[in-house]
């Protein structure tokens, strides 16, 4: 039987409610107050208080991380689309660069952190963005290049036989053919940027940032703040994902 919109919505919420219910039950057991448990488990009410405190007094850290994630993702998106289009459009360029780029994207960016640790000024925004670019740019470039490469040859042939200008083919076929791939890759890039920015903030210890705060509260044994930041990060990811999905529905309406 076909589900209504409300039924769909409730189904989606049921997972969250189940998790919350388990957390509430665990929070009010004796087990939650035992010494070893307190080292890693935070009660739901404490986490709630921590979230309120973060938004009241520590919002700058969220904004700082959010700004880094946003700037890094935009740069990766722009460069990825430009290089991806060029590589996908010219077959020889695609063939000659496919292996080097595949090799590049196989290197975990976390490894590069150990190299950056030897540099002065490593806590600057530039290096965090550079790290995201190192990890995410090859993914973006190859996804776009593959999308261009896999775009319907038959549609292209119609125009190539008519000696149509390349710009017309790009504007009327290729851009649309890569849109779906662009949105799904953007979601991947955002998740990637969140991970890399938070990890680099933990390692490089800048003045602001969620990563820096998580490390700080973990050292101070205030585990409820670590939980609170984790929830906030999850919500940021969910929100960004939702926004991209909205755009995807609007601009890739034919799929």
């Amino acid at each position, binding site marked *: 039987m076909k589900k209504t919109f409300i039924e769909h919505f409730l189904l989606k919420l049921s997972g969250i409610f189940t998790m919350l219910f388990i957390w509430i039950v665990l929070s009010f057991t004796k087990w939650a107050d035992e010494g070893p448990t307190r080292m890693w488990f935070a009660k739901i009410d404490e986490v709630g208080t921590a979230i309120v405190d973060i938004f009241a007094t520590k919002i700058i850290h969220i904004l700082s991380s959010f700004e880094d994630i946003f700037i890094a993702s935009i740069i990766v998106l722009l460069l990825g689309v430009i290089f991806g289009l060029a590589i996908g459009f010219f077959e020889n360029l695609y063939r000659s660069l496919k292996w080097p780029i595949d090799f590049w994207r196989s290197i975990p960016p976390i490894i590069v952190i150990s190299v950056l640790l030897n540099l002065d000024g490593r806590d600057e925004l530039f290096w965090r963005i550079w790290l995201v670019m190192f990890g995410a740019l090859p993914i973006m470039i190859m996804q776009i290049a593959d999308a261009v490469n896999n775009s*319907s040859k*038959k*549609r292209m*042939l*119609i*125009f*190539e*036989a*008519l000696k*149509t200008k390349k710009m*017309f083919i790009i504007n*009327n*076929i290729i851009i*649309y053919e890569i849109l779906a791939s662009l949105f799904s890759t953007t979601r991947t890039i955002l998740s990637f940027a969140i991970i890399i920015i938070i990890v680099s903030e933990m390692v490089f210890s800048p003045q602001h940032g969620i990563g820096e705060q998580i490390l700080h509260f973990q050292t101070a044994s205030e585990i409820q703040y670590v939980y609170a930041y984790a929830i906030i990060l999850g919500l940021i990811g969910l929100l960004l994902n939702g926004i991209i999905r909205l755009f995807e529905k609007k601009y890739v*309406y*034919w799929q």
Partner: protein
Amino acid sequence: MSSIKIKNLVFSYKTQNNKNSTKNIVIDEFFVKNGEIVGFFGPNYVGKTTLLKYISQIHKDFKVSNGSIFYDNRAYDKQNNIPLILYIPQNYSSSIFPWFSIKSNLRIIMKSLDFSKELIEENVKEFCSDFGYSSEEALLKDYGFYQTDKLKQTSRIKNINELSGGQKQILTVLRTLMTSPNIITMDEPFSAIDIFKGIKFRKNVFDYLRKKKITTIIVSHELKEIIELSDKLVILNYDNVGRIIKGIENSNVSENEIETFAIKIKERYNLNYV
């Protein structure tokens, strides 16, 4: 309208299924007069579509080892301008642009040829009138491109995704005709259109092609259809590596003659599907 002539042509191409193997097409002689409608008929894998693509100059990987193709008595050269040839592929879905509306799909080829907006609208209007309709809306409504809500008494043009396979095929054919090319090559252009719309649509299309004297080559597996619609039938056979073995002029061919011809072909080439 334009003429096409092929003489002693031998060309090879890499097959789609196996890029390492090549297939040869050999054509002794082939001629299509100005405004003539020619049907290609032959068993699967004989090279009908390949020949059609070669004539349409849309295949990249052809290697001509002998002979040439002539358009309007001028040998084809990549540098020379050739007549406007439009190819209607067998796979109509991949030649539709799902991100554009139905009306934009109808105009996309004209737009790609740098036709001005005024000229495009003029062509559309003229085409609809020659095709037997008072307006573009009337034409689209007749072929089911409009969704009507009988209760609210409203109608709206459908999205591309709402079209059936047959409607997509109609759209592809209409788009090609509207552009008024010199030559049209069609690869099974009516295969997905239902019998109710199909008879009328086919008649309209061929009436239009004859009226405008557009040189046309059509590939079909329906022998009866192809004989009825075309002025000349070309049979391709793979006994001799894709050599064109016979062309018949079929003016005033009767039903009985078609049946007799079909039986003869069936016996001659041991075909089971005619």
